[in-house]
């Protein structure tokens, strides 16, 4: 069975703090894909990143970085120097090879206070 766990339901930080959102996944497939999506207050799901299971290199995009570790089945997301505009619900998702359905975690609500 495939499963994504986001144990942190809600996180509150003050602007400029660094914050890490945890994502742990379960799958028996050797080829799979991991995603992060952001849902701002406006409601749409905004794609942030996609990683495949063969690429464990960490990725950095501006203030965002992702740490993929197959040994612990984790795909954590860090925001450096958080800003109020980062306030949103963040979803981690898993997609196994040759399937098309995304398996989502329950999401982590991040609130960044000024």
């Amino acid at each position, binding site marked *: 069975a495939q499963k994504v766990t986001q144990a942190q339901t809600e996180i509150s930080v003050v602007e400029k703090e660094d914050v890490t959102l945890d994502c742990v996944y379960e799958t028996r497939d050797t080829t799979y894909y991991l995603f992060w999506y952001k849902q701002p207050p406006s409601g749409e*799901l905004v*794609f942030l990143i996609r990683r495949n299971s063969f690429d464990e290199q960490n990725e950095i995009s501006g203030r965002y970085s992702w740490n993929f570790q197959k040994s612990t089945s984790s795909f954590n997301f860090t925001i450096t120097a958080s800003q109020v505009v980062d306030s949103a619900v963040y979803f981690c998702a898993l*997609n196994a090879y*040759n399937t*098309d*359905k995304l398996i989502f975690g329950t*999401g982590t609500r991040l609130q960044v206070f000024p």
Partner: protein
Amino acid sequence: EAGVTQFPSHSVIEKGQTVTLRCDPISGHDNLYWYRRVMGKEIKFLLHFVKESKQDESGMPNNRFLAERTGGTYSTLKVQPAELEDSGVYFCASSQTRSGGADTQYFGPGTRLTVL
């Protein structure tokens, strides 16, 4: 380029009524998906179209839900008759072509359905 659009943004209906949700995918995207998020829970897959064909409808909860994608462009999701437990946010997503089964899916803003 326009993103995925959904209509209406919000619908409030009474139990037993019918509601039809519409999704327009990104132009040129063959794959169209429907997902649903019930309050506080995870977003769950409902079904997947490749062009006008249903590729996977394993997530459809019951036969009160009917999805169509005539002509392989926009899609509709009809709930008839609606029940209280159908309340939630219905998301539509699209992706271009299958490439090993994991094209990036781009989501619309969702339709919030409230059944009273």
